[in-house]
């Protein structure tokens, strides 16, 4: 993978000097994904389903093929691949439909402080409404979920295990390969937040054997406005829809109706057509780049950056051992929002804040962090510049009295 060449595929990286280190929030959009959506809007911008004229048929074909492409990407079946508004919406669907209908006050839900708000608040609600207990896996001293600690909280009462695949703050990978079989021994189902995994990892839902999994288009070179819910066929077959209306039913009578089969029963109304077609193109691009190659590249960059950062006085790195491209850090004594303006002046895009993961920020006992996330289109030169700017920023803030 040649990151310099790859930059050419991203309009924003060719039109201005920009070191984009905020991929964990949203990835940039490659030309070909933009072009694919343009094709939809200029050549066949019509509704899918029930359209028997040619351009509508074309839209339906492309839309259907898009789902298959995305299903194949994670080794799921077509019927197991549901389009949603985003990862957050997909994770809510699991909690609302599975959680509210299957849990009782005797049950336990295992979560972690590494979860994104979108994978913790839905289960807080389920706990509130069903009386089930929310149990946090104790994190180890680095802030990781370990199999050992997971075993300490797993019990006969465990009914749901809701864990992130990769933390969006710490960049740690959860040992799901070990955790999922343990959970299944207790007949618990496992919901995986793969929003940070899909852009960087080959996900194989069959091998992983998770019960549900969710991710978002905009983090994996795709468009905004779309996400994916994966669920095992036998679970989705039993799940109640959460939204009702057009396209999700076979038959409507005055006082009742019959749902279609999965995935359609979960998708009422006009679907995100341009978005699905765009996301499929992003998936093809990712497959050509090879997720493993992306991950190796970003880890190399991150490694190089971390090694430089930990040598610097006045800089604290919270996750030196992360196994992805994410670095959580701070300039000592400088509020991240002050710091980020400095980086911005130097055309480096970083994120500052709690990253929608306040629990791990509280766990770190800081008000907020800076986050640099490296991706396929970042280069070794980007790392060098980044480190130089960290030093300059630190010196600047010291000089003005921070």
């Amino acid at each position, binding site marked *: 993978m040649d990151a310099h060449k790859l930059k050419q595929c991203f309009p924003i990286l060719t039109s201005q000097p920009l070191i984009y280190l905020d991929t964990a929030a949203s990835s940039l959009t490659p030309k070909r994904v933009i072009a694919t959506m343009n094709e939809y809007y200029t050549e066949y911008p019509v509704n899918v389903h029930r359209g028997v004229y040619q351009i509508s048929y074309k839209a339906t074909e492309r839309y259907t093929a898009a789902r298959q492409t995305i299903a194949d990407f994670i080794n799921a079946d077509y019927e197991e691949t549901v389009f949603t508004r985003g990862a957050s919406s997909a994770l809510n669907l699991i909690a609302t439909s599975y959680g509210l209908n299957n849990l009782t006050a005797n049950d336990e839900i295992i979560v972690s402080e590494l979860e994104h708000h979108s994978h913790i608040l839905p289960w807080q609600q389920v706990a509130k409404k069903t009386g089930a207990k929310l149990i946090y896996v104790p994190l180890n001293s680095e802030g990781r979920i370990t199999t050992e600690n997971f075993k300490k909280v797993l019990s006969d009462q465990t009914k749901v295990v809701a864990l992130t695949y990769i933390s969006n703050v710490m960049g740690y990978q959860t040992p799901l390969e070990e955790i999922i079989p343990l959970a299944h021994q207790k007949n618990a189902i496992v919901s995986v937040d793969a929003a940070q995994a899909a852009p960087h990892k080959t996900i194989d839902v069959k091998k992983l054997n998770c019960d549900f999994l969710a991710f978002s288009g905009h983090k994996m070179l795709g468009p905004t406005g779309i996400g994916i819910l994966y669920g095992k066929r036998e679970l989705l077959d039993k799940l109640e829809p959460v939204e009702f209306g057009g396209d999700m039913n076979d038959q409507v009578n005055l006082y009742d109706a019959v749902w279609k089969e999965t995935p*359609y029963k979960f998708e009422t109304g006009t679907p995100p057509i341009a978005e699905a077609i765009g996301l499929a193109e992003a998936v093809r691009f990712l497959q050509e780049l090879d997720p493993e190659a992306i991950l190796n590249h970003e880890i190399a960059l991150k490694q190089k950056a971390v090694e430089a950062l930990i040598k610097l006085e006045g800089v604290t790195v919270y996750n030196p051992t992360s196994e992805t491209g994410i670095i959580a850090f701070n300039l000592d004594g400088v509020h991240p929002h002050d710091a980020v303006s400095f980086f911005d002046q130097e055309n480096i895009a970083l994120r500052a804040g709690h990253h929608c993961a306040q629990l791990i920020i509280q766990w770190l006992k800081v008000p907020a962090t800076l986050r640099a996330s490296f991706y396929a289109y970042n280069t070794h030169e980007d790392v060098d510049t980044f480190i130089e700017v960290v030093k300059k920023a630190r010196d600047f803030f010291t000089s003005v009295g921070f």
Partner: protein
Amino acid sequence: MQQLENLYRQIIMDHYKNPRHKGLIDSDRYRTHHIKNPSCGDDITVQSAVKDGIVKDVRHDGSGCSICCSSASVLATLMIGQNIDSAQKLTDNYLNMIMNRPVDENLDLEDALAYQGVKQFPARIKCATIAWKAFEQTLKEWSDNDE
């Protein structure tokens, strides 16, 4: 217009207006399969009765456009009397023809040949195949149960 005339052949219209073997039979001698095409509302149920490896009867019912309804009638006429193996081969051949894939010229699709015109109308392929796919499912049940 040429193409549309090719689609609505006389044979097809005849089966549409005068469907053969229509109406379902409530008996455990039959295997039944129902398919609905959400994209256009075609809704077809097909039954088959197989004995000693021979398709003894095929029945169908449902609603839909002329292509969909007539093809169920044509299917029934063609299949009755075939053995399971040739019934499957004919089905494959028909589906290949509609999808514009290579076909076995030696197999006689009889009236079903009239559906050749459908391949010019990709949006109508589902209409022409739904009954045949339902039939194929019933065949599969017969084989799975070792008849």
